[in-house]
């Protein structure tokens, strides 16, 4: 978090996206700014009214578009400006991360956090930690490779399939 942390150059700089709610985490990140705390510049913030608005598709899309890590952050339970948005989000993401895990996405690239408007320090900590972790892991190859790969063109190993193909 000091000057040395930011001036060190690394071979790989990950791209991070943070989906944050405007009332708590966005404000917490603002506080980190007004307190002149330092953290890696890898993160790009997308502001939402509430974590309840964040669709899992956005996370998927971010990975597909080249994000190496995704952070989702909102108000602590009970602090939601809209009363219950973060509670719904909590369930939605608990399910979604299990799904991603099941299809083989390394969950170390996906971080969830509660950062309140008063927790500038926690924002810095969460972003720094995720950046460093993802930097260590290297680029997220999976979706990039997927995007580059073409449609299935399996060999006709199956005799039945071969016969069917040749009869066309």
């Amino acid at each position, binding site marked *: 978090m000091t000057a040395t942390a930011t001036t060190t150059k690394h071979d790989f700089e990950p791209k991070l*996206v943070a989906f944050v709610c405007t009332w708590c985490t966005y404000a917490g990140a603002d506080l980190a700014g007004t307190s002149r705390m330092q953290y890696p510049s890898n993160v*790009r*913030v997308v502001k939402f*009214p509430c974590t309840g*608005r964040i*669709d899992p598709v956005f996370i998927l899309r971010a990975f597909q578009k080249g994000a190496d890590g995704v952070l989702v952050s909102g108000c602590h339970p009970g602090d939601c400006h*809209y009363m219950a948005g973060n509670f719904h989000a909590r369930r939605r993401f608990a399910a979604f991360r299990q799904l991603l895990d099941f299809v083989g996405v390394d969950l170390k690239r996906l971080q969830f956090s509660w950062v309140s408007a008063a927790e500038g320090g926690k924002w*810095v900590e969460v972003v720094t930690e995720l950046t460093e972790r993802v930097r260590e892991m290297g680029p997220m190859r999976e979706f990039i490779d997927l995007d580059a790969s073409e449609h299935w063109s399996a060999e006709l190993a199956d005799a039945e399939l071969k016969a069917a193909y040749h009869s066309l």
Partner: protein
Amino acid sequence: MSRIGVFVCHCGENISRTVDVEKVAEAARGLLGVAHACDYKYMCSDPGQALLKKAVAEHRLDGVVVAACSPRMHEKTFRKATEQAGLNPFLCEMANIREHCSWVHEDRDEATAKAIDIVHMLVERVKRNRKLQPISVPVTKTSLVIGGGIAGIQAALDIADAGHRVVLVEREPSIGGHMAQLSETFPTLDCSQCIMTPKMVDVANHPNITLHTYSEVEEVDGYIGNFQVKIRKKARSVDMARCTGCGVCMAKCPQKKIPNSFDRDLGMRPAIYVPFPQAVPNVPVIDRVNCTWFKSGKCGVCQKVCGPGAVDYAQQDEFVVEQVGAIVVATGFNLYDISEKPKGSPIKGYGEFGHGKIPDVIDGMTFERLASASGPTGGKILRPSDGREPKQVVFVQCVGSRAREKGISYCSKICCMYTAKHTMLYKHKVHDGQAYVFFMDARTPGKGYDEFWRRSIEQEEAVYIRGMVSRLYQKGDKIVVMGSDIAVGIQVEIEADLVVLATAVQPRQGAELLAQKLGISYDQYNFYSEAHAKLRPVECATAGIYLAGACQGPKDIPDTVSQASAAAAKVMTLFAKDQLEREPIVAKVNERFCVGCFACKKVCAYGAIEEKEIRDRQGNLVKVVAYVNPGVCGGCGTCQATCPSKSVELDGYTDEQILAMIETL
């Protein structure tokens, strides 16, 4: 093709020290759809804003990105400037390159690269912004107040004094609520009736207040500014217009031995009665369950003696529909009954305290009636069993409250203070009597409260014993109290003449039913929930409905009155304008695609989503879709994230906008 203008602010040196602002402007210029980009020392200054307005006109811009500080700082400033330049204010977005960039990074290249990315994201976003118009909802400037206790009375008077019409609905035959039952009030020992009855009369005489007593809210429809309320006026059997309140009917009624619940069944009343002499309105009501006429068709004395001919046995329940713009809920509380099984508790009441079967074990409200000058004993403290004056009185606090296994985990808040008051009232009336109080903690946060409690010990010589009572049982004409003094660490036994239990404050029975009618939320105990525990403590999550008093949680009189006035102030704020205006960040439904699964409705914390029928020209039902009431929608967007087909969209945060931002990665 969009024509976006990008304005990069130096913020003095706050941004330009670490971000190469010229480079950011140059990069912005290269973005598709950007028609103009420049940088300036202070965008928020007057010349900075003038620069923006000039550029909008000169370059015919259709969107603006100001790359500067946090939108929480200056979004309003720049949206206003954009509006003055002739664009819809919602076509202006801020790229936060100060708090999120220049202030938190030191490497100039990195910070500049990030700033360019942030600007790019916002440019893509603003290209997809829609023109939004502020939402306005008409407001009916009449308020409904439910409950005629001190909370409802205070709220009604405040709103009525501000010049707005108030409809006050009270379930009982008279307003007054619990406060009318109290003898004296802490911490000043004012006589409750003395300070309460003038307010009750004010309500009755107020030209702006329509009072419906012996009435209940039947149905509530609509939303903030526009509620329709159906009120059931229960048949009183007495014509309010004709009755003069002379009281002859009550005097002549042959049925005189009906326990009066107002006096906690200690006193008796006739079948045609007012609950207490100062009742407002002073119009009796016939208790049809106990009235001989209604039971057997005989008697009819009251009708015969009534000069004005007000007694009307044929009266039916009536329904009144009122249009109101705001609702204040002030339905108060019930006291926990030790013979009852509280909600969610596996245990049936307090067997160890005799299940309410010991006649000289009473609750605090009964003690109030005994101590009240207008009560059944004329203010003398007498035992219910034999009418003797008790010389040893034991008070037990936290009965029901703070008893998790009894299903109530909360503190009832008022018991410590009223028990202290009871010990004083007792000492004032029975000089040679001794009061004992078993307590766990004395919770006296309030102005003059702790001093009051200490006074009961230091001056009125009440003996406070820290420790809960294990058991009570009748022994001869005494009640043996088995307790422990945990400061000494030994058991204590007292043979009491009278035991007074400070029973828990609970929500009104059936509180949840009213909540369901109103569409407001309630907690695990059925207390009504406020929108925010700290910042919106008098508002319900449902817009236009406000809370006052103990229906929200245990409260004493000062807190209740404060909250009632606060609720009234909220109503007045709402009524200050003819139209309710609000930011247009609300959800909208695409009715073409909505399949009416109502997942959105399930997740909406505001109850903003309604079911809307789509009919063809012949009036045949085509389908049922969701409809977002823009007056009620809070704008969180949880509905959109939940909707499988994305048929509901939050203006200002559409999928298109968000995905476009992600696309820039």
